[in-house]
């Protein structure tokens, strides 16, 4: 891909209990971005082109995954960026937070097998109409690490657009959804960890395709007024 002239500035948000912010910042930097780790009490993200909510256990996952994090001050500007068509990515716990915040449809329940899944999985690019997947090829198979207990996606509204689909659906997710995009495609949640598959020494570099896509994505037209 052709990189932007200036490195995109990405906010990597840390909630109490987030634990993947360093991996995410490292991988984003490798992918050509200028990431900054920001605390969840921050009430503006004016300096940033895009935002990533990394994985972990925000607010201890108490009540429900993402239920408390949704009310952190930073979620105000995250919602504004989402509405303005800027790229917003939630990884694992970040995906759960985006669902709780209503920025993506659906919710998460315990894996169908009730075990914490920690292994590489294969996902297929089922739609390229999203910030995360537009630089990938439709049908392309990517190898990414999955690391979650509540990765079982449910969407009674049937409005979530699946952009990555598990090949073996290890957690029972509805429609085999490993990643979901909003209608405009600028807000994406992904359950496996692309940021942990960005160097050969980690066992896969496939995550780089997704992160570069996320960073190189043109801004989409706003879908609703702010």
């Amino acid at each position, binding site marked *: 891909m052709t990189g932007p002239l200036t490195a995109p500035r990405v906010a990597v948000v840390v909630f109490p209990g987030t634990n993947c912010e360093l991996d995410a910042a490292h991988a984003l930097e490798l992918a050509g971005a200028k990431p900054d780790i920001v605390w969840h009490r921050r009430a503006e993200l004016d300096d940033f082109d895009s935002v990533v909510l990394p994985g972990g256990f925000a607010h201890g996952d108490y009540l429900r995954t993402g239920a408390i994090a949704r009310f952190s001050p930073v979620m105000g500007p995250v919602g504004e960026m989402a509405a303005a068509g800027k790229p917003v990515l939630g990884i694992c716990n970040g995906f759960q937070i985006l669902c709780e915040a209503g920025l993506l449809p659906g*919710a998460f*329940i315990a894996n169908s097998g009730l075990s914490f899944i920690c292994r590489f999985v294969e996902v297929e690019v089922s739609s390229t109409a999203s910030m995360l997947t537009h630089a990938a090829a439709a049908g392309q198979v990517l190898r990414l690490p999955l690391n979650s207990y509540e990765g079982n996606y449910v969407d009674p509204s049937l409005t979530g657009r699946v952009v990555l689909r598990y090949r073996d659906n290890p957690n029972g997710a509805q429609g085999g959804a490993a990643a979901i995009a909003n209608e405009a495609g600028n807000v994406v949640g992904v359950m496996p960890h692309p940021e942990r598959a960005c160097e050969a020494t980690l066992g896969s570099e496939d995550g780089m395709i997704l992160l570069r896509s996320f960073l190189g994505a043109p801004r989409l037209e706003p879908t609703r007024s702010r």
Partner: protein
Amino acid sequence: MRVKVEIVRRPEIADPQGVTVVRALRELGFGEVAEARFNRTIVLDLHGTDPVSAQARVEEMCRRLLANPVIEDFEVQVLEP
């Protein structure tokens, strides 16, 4: 004032814990168990003594935070004042 909140996952949403417990109960000889569902109970102690106001306030708490409207319903019961 004490208020009990019952968070109930909608019947059409799977309950993997319930499925596993049904399997275990059947292995123990309780073959009559058709289904098990896990609810979440939260007991709140509130300042104030007006049960009508408490009911309304706690229902608002459920809508804002305690229940996820995508997959859960809730029942609010005012217990002893």
